[in-house]
């Protein structure tokens, strides 16, 4: 890393917090576009290192930039590349630099800046962003360390807190409940009634959860077949519903039927056939598909959409309670990273500072009579050593990593060391 990079980490981003979907969808990058953009930014001299994180909720450009006009330069680049209005882009963007930019990345990786607090997908997306940047040749040691540290912070947050533990989506909660009745899903059967949007989502989730060959029942068989073929499920005609219910351990219903699709007598008959083995009904429909009194049948667990949404609400509160601990972990990891960066930066800055004063001394000596130079050199050296002694001591002794980085940046700015 060149010295000029250390205080110039910059972040330009558009996230769901400040940019509407109409902006986000236009600044979103595919993997190929990320490679292309990074190559252009790097070859055009806008950035010396860079990583682009792009998800459906955010597009963020992390870079080490050569001058102070990073925000304008990067916005102009995106504007020209995408053919978008620069003022509009600038108005909906946010900009961070130095430790604040690093902190933002760590919080993103930890899921603390996500729409669904603590979501896990973003950690993989941050890792993927680093991987794409490496392929494009736009990362070196410091950027790499920054992203690796952010991923480590994200992992720690998920391991040491419960921020990702409690599911938020209705389908995940349904499966969480089913898992607490049946345990391992691979040995159990799931029946999905209704091949609409909700039913399809649930069926796909079931396959991801390890269910083998979920059975899909729909009034229009072709729709059930279409869904089943995509998830290696089995479609059965509506008329077979009564025969399928006793075979299923978990029945998920999401139809637009005005009346009950599954009634208590049908469930009692099914339980007799099952010799009392437990059954679970997840009713995602409004109006309800499963008769409410089904839950009174022995060993039957039945949940309505309201039950599941109530759990989602509780889980959101549970995740929120983990935020202080997660923030603490983020700060610890950030401090470790900044300490590493600070140690990397202080020594070369001090050497440059000393060289800068030596250069000024030499300029003065050139104007002095030759006979006086040796004596004057000694005096000027002693003078500059006295001037440098206290600031260098304070710079090296600063314990707070972020403050140390800020002070290094201040010295570099005040003495114009980057110019040298």
């Amino acid at each position, binding site marked *: 890393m060149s010295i000029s990079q250390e205080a110039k980490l910059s972040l330009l981003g558009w996230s769901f917090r400040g940019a509407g979907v109409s902006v986000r969808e236009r600044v979103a990058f595919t993997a190929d576009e990320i490679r292309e953009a990074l190559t252009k930014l790097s070859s055009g001299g806008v950035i010396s290192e860079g990583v682009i994180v792009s998800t459906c909720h955010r597009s963020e450009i992390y870079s080490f930039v050569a001058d102070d006009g990073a925000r304008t330069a990067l916005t102009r680049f995106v504007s020209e590349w995408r053919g978008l209005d620069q003022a509009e882009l600038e108005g909906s963007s946010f900009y961070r630099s130095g430790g604040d930019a690093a902190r933002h990345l760590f919080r993103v990786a930890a899921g603390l800046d996500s729409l669904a607090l603590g979501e896990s997908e973003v950690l993989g997306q941050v890792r993927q962003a680093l991987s794409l940047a490496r392929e494009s040749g736009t990362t070196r040691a410091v950027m790499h360390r920054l992203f690796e540290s952010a991923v480590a912070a994200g992992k720690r947050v998920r*391991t*040491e807190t419960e921020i990702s*533990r*409690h599911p938020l989506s209705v389908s995940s*909660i349904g499966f*969480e*409940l089913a*898992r*607490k*009745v*049946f*345990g391992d899903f691979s040995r159990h059967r799931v029946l999905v009634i209704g091949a609409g949007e909700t039913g399809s989502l649930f069926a796909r989730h079931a396959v991801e959860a390890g269910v083998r060959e979920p059975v899909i029942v729909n009034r229009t068989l072709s729709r059930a077949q279409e869904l089943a073929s995509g998830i290696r499920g089995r479609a059965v005609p509506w008329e077979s519903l009564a025969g399928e219910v006793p075979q299923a351990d978990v029945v998920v219903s999401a139809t637009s039927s005005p009346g009950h699709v599954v009634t208590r007598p049908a469930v009692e008959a099914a339980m007799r056939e*099952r*010799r*009392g*083995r*437990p059954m679970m009904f997840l009713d995602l429909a409004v109006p309800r598909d499963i008769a409410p009194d089904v*839950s009174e049948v*022995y*060993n039957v*667990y039945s*949940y309505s959409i309201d*039950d599941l949404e*109530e*759990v989602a609400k*509780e*889980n959101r509160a549970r995740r929120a309670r983990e935020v202080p601990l997660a923030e603490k972990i983020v700060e610890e990891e950030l401090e470790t990273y900044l300490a590493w960066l600070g140690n990397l930066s202080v020594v070369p800055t001090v050497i440059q500072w000393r060289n800068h004063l030596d250069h000024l001394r030499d300029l003065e000596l050139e104007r002095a009579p030759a006979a006086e130079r040796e004596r004057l050199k000694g005096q000027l050296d002693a003078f500059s050593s006295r001037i440098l002694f206290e600031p260098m001591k304070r710079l090296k002794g600063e314990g707070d990593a972020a403050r140390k980085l800020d002070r290094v940046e201040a010295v570099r700015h005040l003495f114009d060391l980057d110019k040298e």
Partner: protein
Amino acid sequence: MDSHVLGWVAVGLYAAAEAYTILSLIRSRLPALPGPILIGAGLVFQFVDLEVRARAMHSVPYKTIGGSMSLFGWMLGLSYLALLFRHRERAVGPFLIPFVILFSTLGLLLPQAAPQARPDTRGAMFALHVTFAILGYAAFTFSFVLSLLYLIQNRQLRKVKTGLLFSRLPALESIGGMIRTSVSIGLTVLGASVVLGVIWAERVWGTLPDAKLGAAILTLAVYGFLLWKDRRGWVGERVALLSILGFALILFSYTFVNFYFSAEHAFK
């Protein structure tokens, strides 16, 4: 070895196992192995302690209240390991291991002095009868605790309470399987104990005892009925309740029947 240093080392290892299993519930990525290793090491130390007592008494150490409690604690530890290896469900550890600690500690604190041994209670058959009975009761103790856990988890599912306990307790099917295993073990060894006891009593006393035998047979009948119904679809809450009833019968047999209706067969 009067100080039972090895016994206390065993209790310390059980306590460490308890702490580790609690920690591994909080941090699910911790390896599972240290828990059973600590229990296994505790069992070895406690066995040596029991062996020392047995040599001093010239008998399996069930003739003192302290010895029998220690033996019971050791059997609980053994049953716990058996359940763990059969079901691979470490989430029940924090709820079962305290019983191992409790009875093993009582075994070290309660009186150790043996009463005068009755001459008729010598011999391998009597020793096996008592040892099997203690192992059977240990297994039934766990089926009782597991049944309570089943009812708690079942209630949480019914009330849609998805808090800390809900997330930490295993699935109902898993707890049900463990109840089945512990009842099967208990039924087998207690059945063997009753058979051995009857043979021994006929041979030594020339007659069949007594109210305590009746209570033991009733206990076997309850647990046998439980397993039979379990296989015929009574899975779930009712099985858990029946298991609790069975355990209540054991307590009744150990206390009321033991002290008031069983003069010859009393354990005091």
